[in-house]
């Protein structure tokens, strides 16, 4: 997959580095070639326990061995992780970085507006994410619309062309949203403007229902046409229906080829959305932020719907008023698949801190807390077969931390994607400090 770096940008990049001391232009050490051996660290595999003093070998971007006393194959870079913690790259289940635009807010229903079409691989938030050990993010359409657009999963390969960032193994998702944002609670309607429908929570539910009914009708039209066209004596002058990108995406959801990721805060509207999903037979993969998840943890667990939430910072708006810091930890104990998300290109660098808060609020163990930003988001994104834990055969996405990642004193030292070092504090920090002067 990896392509040789063309000489000009590379040279230019080097010139820039030398001249301006801006650290961000250091392209990842391409010479690594996806092979790396990490020695003598405390290995937090997440799924297969902890190895007190162990090694991880990545060859060709894939984890070849996890264990003790692994000999370095010839030419493979060795990283000494003595006294450090080696963990799977952190995964953010819900953010909005590396995009040229977040919301198609001009209309309420925009499933045609695909964030995958507007990736901006130049967003420096990718570097920010890397500095916090994040290797993969689910970058999403915003919450302005009851039905937003399809989302995309990216690896944080800074300096690589945008197409190399896209994780094609991930589950196709579509953003939905409920509550204050979609009813535009905070918006003052100016003279001459009209209030966008829906303006209430019941309206949000109604418009989503209406669109799915339209999509059903659209699918039926196509089915009828295809059946007629395939008949032995197709009718003369058979005219196909008009292809509609908006309906095509909803049809994917109804056919089960794309799952719903729904921004919701309050319990009642969330239950209503679950009813709607049941009625139309589509899959809700995850509720986003859901501050009142603790009120319906049993229902979520029974329906096998995950949640992706903040660790704290509740009560910043009316619909978050009944949020509690115990939301994530409590739901996790109730058997809900929980991840901690950043929702931002800045918080993304301290997801490990946020995950650790569930130990204090909710009583999760170190292992359980670490899962909230590694294996659990991997399951939510449908990529747990390839990332999310340190196991042989998985992609070599690895973070190395100075202390246990759930410690308040820890920091990320190195971030590796598919065996390639994309962030190394040892070389980045002095340059960053130089640049800041």
């Amino acid at each position, binding site marked *: 997959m990896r392509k040789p770096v063309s000489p000009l940008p590379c040279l230019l990049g080097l010139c*820039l580095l030398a001249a*301006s001391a801006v650290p961000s232009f250091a392209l990842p050490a391409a010479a690594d070639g996806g092979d790396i051996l990490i020695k003598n660290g405390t290995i937090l595999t997440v799924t297969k326990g902890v190895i007190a003093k162990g090694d991880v070998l990545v060859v060709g971007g894939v984890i070849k061995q996890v264990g003790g006393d692994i000999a370095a194959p010839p030419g493979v870079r060795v990283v000494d992780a003595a006294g450090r913690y080696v963990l799977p790259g952190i995964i953010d289940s819900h953010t909005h970085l590396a995009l*040229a635009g977040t919301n*198609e807010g001009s209309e309420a229903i925009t499933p045609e507006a695909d964030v995958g*079409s507007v990736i901006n691989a*130049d*967003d420096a938030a990718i570097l920010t994410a890397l500095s916090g050990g994040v290797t993969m993010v689910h970058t999403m359409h915003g919450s302005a619309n009851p039905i937003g657009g399809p989302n995309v999963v990216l690896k944080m390969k800074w300096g690589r*062309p945008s197409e190399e960032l896209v994780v094609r193994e991930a589950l196709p998702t579509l953003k939905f949203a409920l509550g204050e944002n979609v009813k535009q609670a905070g918006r003052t309607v100016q003279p001459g403007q009209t209030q966008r429908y829906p303006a209430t929570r019941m309206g949000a539910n109604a418009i989503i229902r209406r669109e799915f009914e339209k999509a059903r009708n659209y699918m039926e039209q196509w089915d009828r046409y295809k059946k007629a066209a395939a008949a032995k004596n197709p009718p003369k002058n058979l005219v196909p229906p008009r292809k509609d*990108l908006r309906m095509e995406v909803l049809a994917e959801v109804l056919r089960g080829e794309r799952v719903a990721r729904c921004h919701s805060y309050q319990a009642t509207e969330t239950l209503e959305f679950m009813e709607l999903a049941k009625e139309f037979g589509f899959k809700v993969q995850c509720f986003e932020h859901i501050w009142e998840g603790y009120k319906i943890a049993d229902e979520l667990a029974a329906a096998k719907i995950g949640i992706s939430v903040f660790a704290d910072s509740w009560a910043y708006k009316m619909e978050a008023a009944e949020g509690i810091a115990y939301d994530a930890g409590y739901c996790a104990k109730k058997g809900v698949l929980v991840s901690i998300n950043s929702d931002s290109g800045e918080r993304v660098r301290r997801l490990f801190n946020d995950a650790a808060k569930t130990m204090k609020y909710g009583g999760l163990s170190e292992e359980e807390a670490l899962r909230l930003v590694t294996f659990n988001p991997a399951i939510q994104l449908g990529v747990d077969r390839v990332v999310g834990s340190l196991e042989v055969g998985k992609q070599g996405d690895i973070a190395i931390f100075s202390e246990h990642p759930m410690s308040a004193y820890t920091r990320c030292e190195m971030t590796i994607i598919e065996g390639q070092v994309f962030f190394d504090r040892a070389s980045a920090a002095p340059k960053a400090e130089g640049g800041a002067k």
Partner: protein
Amino acid sequence: MKHSPRVSVPLILSVITGLILAAGPPPGDIGPTYAVSNCRIVPVTEPVVEKGVLVIRDGLIEALGPVDKVKAPDDAEVVEAEGLTAYPGLISAFSNLFLEQPARPEGQGAPFEDFPQAQAQQPQEDRFPPGPGLLVLDQLKPKRSAVEGFHKAGFTTVLVAPSRGIFQGQSVVLNLNGEPIRPMVLRNGAALHINFTTERGAYPSSLMGTIAHIRQSFIDAEYYAARQAQYAKDPAGLKRPEYDPRLEALAPFVRDRRPVVFQCNNVEDVKRALKIIAEFKLNALLAGATEAWRAADVLKKTPVPLLIGLDFRPPATSKYATQGDELRKKAEAEIYPGNAAALAKEGIAFALVSAANADGASVLRGIRAAIKAGLPADAALRALTVQPARYLGLDRALGSLEPGKVANVVLVKGDIFDDKAQVAKVFADGVLFKYAEVSK
């Protein structure tokens, strides 16, 4: 004409026609013959002639060659050009010359605001202004000073592209042979122009919405063209497909593969355009593309005509623009001018265009900067002559000095892209413009 005591309608019409025609060369009138003598000739497609004669007759090149082979015709006016070099007139296959569009009313996205009432009542499917049908020619206000500025930079031919909205309308190719617009027109409706921008306060308000909108528009145009064709073939037993002016204007670009130009504002736009081009099998060109070198791998795999702009400011989203002034300025001075040189090195074909650079002098500065950044001067010359002529489908008429081609010739003291070069005379369609008395 019959003499009539009353002023007849035909008379008025003929007077009006006469007035219009008086603006350009009278039809059927034969233009002058010139023999440009003793100049160095750079035909671009043939080897350089060190001391030659170039014969121009009635707007076309009749002959050219060394002084001992080509003689000035008896009826020719001799233009003494010793010490000057003759080049084919440069072509900018993407410019904003003469473009004076009315400022966009607040909150309105597109240049069409004629019937706001009717638009508001249109069903959702018709909510877009009929941008694709707009002809930029109707909005042009030619200015002598602008023509002079481009002449003095060596240009005789420009494509003028519309500049507002997503589906911006259709461009015109002009030969800069004077001030009246009609005699300049080489081709109207040259290409459809699309920009990856957004509508203010209306759908689409985001780039992802814009991309969906572009795709849905081409889907609809294909559908419309197919329905109309089916109906034209045999309407019996078919419900008449409804006329739609916007899709009617778009249909030729999918049905007949007429040229479409995508304005690419950064490296990602290049990739976005390539995806849309592939999806609808468009006959497309990319304009601007000041970060094209960053997509060199993709462009080598999927060759597409490139109209490379000479604006070296890093795009707002670029990593070169978002991390401090120092880096941005450095990138503008050292990295972005190297775009064309990098493409040439990779063997990727392109034309250089004036794009939004409004005056000839700034275009010339851009060309010189690209050369200083490593673009060989002969590659630059080809990128401003034969290459754009080919991209515009006008290479039988333009782009080099050859007998039979349009007499677009610039006579320069010095090498055309040299800092000290001075354009002395310009022929456009065989019309002579004198700019500087240049000493030998």
